């Protein structure tokens, strides 16, 4: 299963990006084969609708879970209807590698 983690950079040592739609990178972690892919977020600077546009990218990539600091009001019903689970982590120091580790438990 693919899990997306919003990240401030494109390494495993980068920290969790607290913003969903305007994060710097999406880290796509596949729990089946432990593969990691990095997608730079093209919606970071767009004027409006960054949340739904980011949902589009992750849903097209077959993501079933998303870990981020927060999810906006427009995004929540979309993710619910797509049956994509939202996981909120409020710890700004949390590294991507630590999140991946806790996912495999």
């Amino acid at each position, binding site marked *: 299963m693919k899990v997306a983690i919003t990240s401030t950079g494109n390494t495993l040592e980068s920290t969790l990006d607290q913003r969903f739609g305007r994060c710097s990178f999406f880290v796509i972690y596949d729990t089946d084969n432990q593969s990691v892919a990095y997608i730079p977020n093209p*919606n970071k600077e*767009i004027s*409006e*609708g*960054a949340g*739904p*546009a980011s*949902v*589009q990218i992750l*849903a*097209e990539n077959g993501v079933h879970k998303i870990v981020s600091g927060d999810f906006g009001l*427009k995004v929540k019903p*979309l993710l619910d*209807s*797509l049956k994509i689970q939202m996981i909120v982590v409020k710890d700004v120091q949390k590294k991507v590698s630590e999140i991946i580790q806790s996912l495999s438990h």
Partner: protein
Amino acid sequence: MKIAVAGGKGGTGKTLVATNIFYVLMEEGQQVELIDCDAEEPNDTLFFKGEIMHHNDVLLKVPEIDTSLCVFCGKCKEYCNYNAILMIGFSNYIKVIEELCHGCGACTAACSYGAIREIDRLIGEVNQYRISQHALLTEARMRVGVYSPVNTVKAALKLNPEPYMQIIDAPPGTSCPFIHSVVHADYVILVTEPTPFGLSDLKQTVETLKGMNKRYGVIINRVDVPNNEMTDYLKKENIPLLAEIPFDRRIAEVYAKGGLCAQQILAYKHQFKNIVHFINQEICK
């Protein structure tokens, strides 16, 4: 004649100036309309009591997608400039995010399968009140959660009962709602305050108005100690200083009770009358 009251920064006293100018004109017996274009937070009606004369809803055409006709080709999504359509082709999933839709109709034009029809979405309302025999107050009020007040502002300005003189209370900022509020004005009063924020936002507003070829002047509100930076800027740009309103506790007291200082304090009645007189002369030049 149309006078817009604007000024970039919020909380500088646009509503104070607009309501008091409206009051002095009304008292002179002029046919005058005050239009509250601060649709996100209209409050001019707090200062005047009147009978409602007109009400209309402001609607936006948004798409509704019939999934039994949709082939998930993605053309509507591609045409949409505002990310208002979300589509996951392989899941046969398509959804309109109404809050992001600007009602441009591009998606409807893009669809070759007749899967999109346009439905009305309520985005705001316009109310008009009669304040006196010759005076009207029109209020633009957008719905909470709507992205842009522009259509609601335009609807309020369009009621336009000629030959009424119009006082337009513009929203803060220099973006679309401001532009639409001042675009038809003959004169723009810029209300600012003697602070770095006030000056910074004033400069942005002036630059915008230069591009629009508008005549404008400045009122500095809540003046206690002179701000040379502000007055130097006005001199350098050759912008008329219409008035300086002092930092006077009495104004705050009157305002907080929903009163008008031009009605209750004689000195301010004269000040607002002088402003109107000056603008009249400027426009007739």
